């Protein structure tokens, strides 16, 4: 049954539509781009978790993934390249009732934004960080990100990447994150669930989503299109919940598997709670001691 956006109102809407700035469709993402898929998962997770949309803010950096903020009908901030996390830090701390989601790319969060990533994790700030890992700086045409697999071809590694990539779940966990998961754009149901859990988790939660970039990364590496990539994930991913993050590094060219799953879900005092507690003790009976409270 085919239809345009103006479906009769008796039919349920596309569940993503209440989240979309539909007036901005079509979006700029390419055919088969995995980013849109992750947005579907995000929208469904938000629906399920019951956070009022007015209390949900989304912050992106710059990049194809960075455009997510601009398409979501939330209080949404498209900041500068790599700086979504420190912006989100100010936003969250100034207005603690907000649920703040950082949604950006591998280059943005782990390349230029690496320092903010580890420091926010260290602080265990209550942010949900969704990182779409397409193994490339896609928006600028496909340069090697810090997650680019060894031997992959990127415009700035025309003879193949020889650098060691980051194992992002491990970096996040080692820096202090309390929730760490990795899924792929093939695993839409689990991705949705992971985002849901991350949204509900207090503290720094991190969801890495491997997603196809057919135009740039897959094409340059002659890996087919979105369908082939999703099939690859279907066939080669091994779900290993609770795996030691040390062991979940991705080496697509030398290993035949990618470990995915929920790796970490621990309790640790969140930054703002710690702050409130700290000051409550110190300044008892004083004035209102806490910003935004």
């Amino acid at each position, binding site marked *: 049954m085919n239809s345009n956006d103006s479906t009769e109102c008796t039919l349920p809407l596309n569940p993503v539509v209440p989240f979309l700035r539909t007036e901005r469709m079509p979006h*700029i*993402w*390419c*055919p088969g781009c995995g980013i849109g898929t992750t947005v579907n998962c995000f929208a469904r997770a938000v629906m399920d978790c019951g956070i009022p949309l007015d209390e949900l803010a989304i912050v992106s950096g710059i990049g*194809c993934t960075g455009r997510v903020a601009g398409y979501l009908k939330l209080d949404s901030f498209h900041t500068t390249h790599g700086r979504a996390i420190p912006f989100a830090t100010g936003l969250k701390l100034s207005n603690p009732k907000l649920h703040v989601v950082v949604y950006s790319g591998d280059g943005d969060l782990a390349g230029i934004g690496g320092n903010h990533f580890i420091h926010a994790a260290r602080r265990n700030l209550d942010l949900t960080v969704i990182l779409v890992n397409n193994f490339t700086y896609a928006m600028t045409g496909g340069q090697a990100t810090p997650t680019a697999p060894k031997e992959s071809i990127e415009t700035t590694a025309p003879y193949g990447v020889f650098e060691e990539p980051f194992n992002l779940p491990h970096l996040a966990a080692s820096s202090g994150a309390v929730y760490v998961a990795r899924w792929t754009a093939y695993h839409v149901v689990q991705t949705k669930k992971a985002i849901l859990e991350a949204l509900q988790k207090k503290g720094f939660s991190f969801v890495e989503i491997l997603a196809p970039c057919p*135009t*740039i990364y897959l094409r340059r590496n002659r890996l087919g299109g979105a369908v082939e990539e999703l099939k690859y994930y279907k066939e080669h991913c091994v779900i290993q919940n609770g795996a030691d993050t040390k062991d979940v590094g991705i080496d697509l060219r030398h290993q035949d598997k990618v470990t995915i799953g929920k790796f970490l879900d621990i309790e640790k005092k969140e930054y703002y709670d710690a702050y409130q507690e700290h000051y409550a003790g110190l300044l008892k009976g004083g004035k209102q001691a806490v910003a935004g409270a």
Partner: protein
Amino acid sequence: MDKRIEIRIAGFGGQGVILMGIILGKAWALFEGKEAAMTQSFGPEARGGACSAQVVLEEGKVLYPYTTQADILVAMSQEAYNVYASSLKPEGTLLIEEELVKLEKALPALRTFAIPATRLAEEAGRRMVTNIVMLGFLTATTGIVSKDAMKQAVESSVPKGTEALNLKAFEMGYTYGLERYVAN
């Protein structure tokens, strides 16, 4: 400025519009030994956004590298046509991807050449060579650059390993042009 040909090629990202401009300019500048300047404008999208190339061909140095009123407009999408049709000279030449562009009304003074380039490219083997089909077609219908120069330019501009496919696409467009508009 004596003889000066201004060409605008427009479509959306992913159609290879810029490469068309490069090949055309290169054919003229390197293989015909004259001077050309190709300028481009594109949006942030890797795919799908509006995208256009301006090619200026001159005998001597190109000082001003932009088109004012194009002698030739190649419209690869409806939007491209809508935006740029008015900038075509009254006596200009219009080339369109006929399955993607619908002319509101045939513009009287224009010479208009239409080709289902995308479909031909799919026939040639890959949709990606739509642009080269169109270049073959342009060569046949406008005759501004020699077929030889164009073929050299195509060969030296496409990714290694795809030369054959691209030359095939070029020939398809060329032949289509000859057959539909020139030969008869």
